[in-house]
């Protein structure tokens, strides 16, 4: 199977600065046709051609899944990041043509739930925006607790509290408002599912608290877009392609493989889905496994690596690509 999913040619039809950190982008099909529908929680992978570098970043779709005329995403500017969000904020203009992937959902609602309890931190609000629209249409029961830094940086707070005054609760850091998680998780009806999307620390906090209160693992859902972390550069030999490549400090192994023109399967690009699993033919050194996919035994075996997020330190690494 080929890399990623089907692609769609789009035109950037609107750009709106939501606040100092967040900008919203609207995409329409370049050929004027309908976009594929999707399920709330899905994301699309946006291709960014930044000079010589091609970046592929996943962004949650925040628009109504029933609206097939346009997709919208919101991008939070990260000045200390690898450049994807900066590219979106500074280089993309209205009218630009871009390529995005078909929607992929790794954070879907459990439609059996009696109630969907949503916990959002910062830009983590985006998948919930689509899910709430989907649930509102089907009379699904939801409750959103949304933590933001400040009112000025509270993306979509007004829109949400106006539309769903009883179901949306907002907490501003600068006013020392904190989600009372123990209290919130206590007393939820049987069959409630909790969903959390936000910074790593918030996700850990929710998962640990829920487990300690006796919530079953299957009722806790989370999405964290693991950004590939930088690391020391290293050399790799791609045996099947007969190419020797060098993985730079600020690019992932997967990106380096793609830069060399070698097709490698991927999906989430965040270490969670397993699609990019690559066989190691030979190695001399140590793996830096940063994924959520491989079993401990597989990591220890030295025979597999997840190139979207993991790295290597050592003399030799030969991969089956």
């Amino acid at each position, binding site marked *: 199977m080929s890399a990623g999913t089907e692609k769609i040619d789009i035109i950037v039809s609107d750009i709106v600065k939501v606040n100092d950190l967040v900008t919203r982008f609207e995409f329409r099909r370049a050929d004027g046709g309908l976009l594929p529908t999707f399920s709330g929680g899905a994301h699309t992978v946006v291709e960014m051609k930044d000079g010589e570098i091609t970046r592929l970043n996943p962004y949650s779709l925040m628009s109504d899944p029933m609206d097939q005329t346009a997709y919208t995403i919101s991008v939070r500017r990260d000045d200390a990041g690898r450049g994807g969000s900066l590219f979106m904020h500074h280089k993309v203009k209205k009218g630009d043509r871009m390529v995005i992937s078909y929607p992929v959902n790794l954070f879907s609602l459990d439609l*059996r*739930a*009696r109630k969907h309890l949503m916990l959002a931190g910062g830009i983590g609000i985006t998948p919930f925006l689509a899910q709430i629209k989907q649930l509102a249409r089907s009379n699904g029961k939801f409750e959103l607790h949304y933590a933001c830094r400040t009112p000025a940086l509270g993306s979509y707070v007004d829109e949400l509290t106006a539309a769903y005054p009883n179901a949306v609760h907002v907490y501003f850091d600068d006013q020392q408002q904190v989600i009372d998680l123990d209290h919130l*998780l*206590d*007393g*939820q*009806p*049987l*069959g*409630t599912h909790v969903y959390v999307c936000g910074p790593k620390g918030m996700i850990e906090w929710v998962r640990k608290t829920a*487990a*300690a*209160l*006796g*919530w*079953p*693992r*299957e*009722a806790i859902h989370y999405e964290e877009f693991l950004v590939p972390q930088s690391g020391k550069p290293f050399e790799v030999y791609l045996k099947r392609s007969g190419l020797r490549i060098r993985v730079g400090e600020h690019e992932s192994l997967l990106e380096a493989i793609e830069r060399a023109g070698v097709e490698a399967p991927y999906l989430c690009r965040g270490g969670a889905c397993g699609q990019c699993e690559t066989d190691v033919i030979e190695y001399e050194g140590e793996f830096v496994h940063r994924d959520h996919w491989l079993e401990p035994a597989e990591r220890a075996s030295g025979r597999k690596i997840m190139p979207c997020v993991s790295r290597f330190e050592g003399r030799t690494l030969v991969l089956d690509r």
Partner: protein
Amino acid sequence: MPEFTFPPSIKSRPVYGTLAPRPGKAHLMIADAEGAEALLGLAVADPTLFAKAHIIYIPKHTGETLVERLRAAAPEILHLSPSYPACVPRLRRILSDAHMGLQVYLAGTEGLIGQAMLEATNAGIPHSAIQTEHRGSVARRMQCVHCKGITEDVMTDPFVCSHCGLTLFVRDHYSRRLAAFQGVCIDAEDPGNIPAPVELYK
């Protein structure tokens, strides 16, 4: 009665464990006959948890002996029921009032475990979050795949469907939704050629 070790089988055959204390807001325990011994094991492991437990117990043939020991272990609530069907309205009410954080512990025959688990999963608890421990009889609830009737307490293979009269062989294929194993006509290709029944696990 010593615990029975089920031989390894196909992936749909339920596998039981050993009850262990788990953090939770409330603790619901349901057992029949020798299953009480597994609950008593929990009481030893964590008396404070047991003090918060709501127990539904069906003594069956074990009479009073295990009842006395359960009482002595001082659970918060101990309800004795003469049969499983008799306790279902109470069980459903407990589950509909319950909140996330309820821990469920089931012990005893496969029939009890399967049926109680079905009530709990219908109420929204994932089946893998429910603890189970088998004790006592290895009799099975069997669904006749032909007439859909369920025959209780099956101890032989083959057996006669108590609804339609076909002779069925016992499969290990199990449905959580029906809380029963599958029984299939044994002489469809050779009518009348029925082997002598053999006791399960003998």
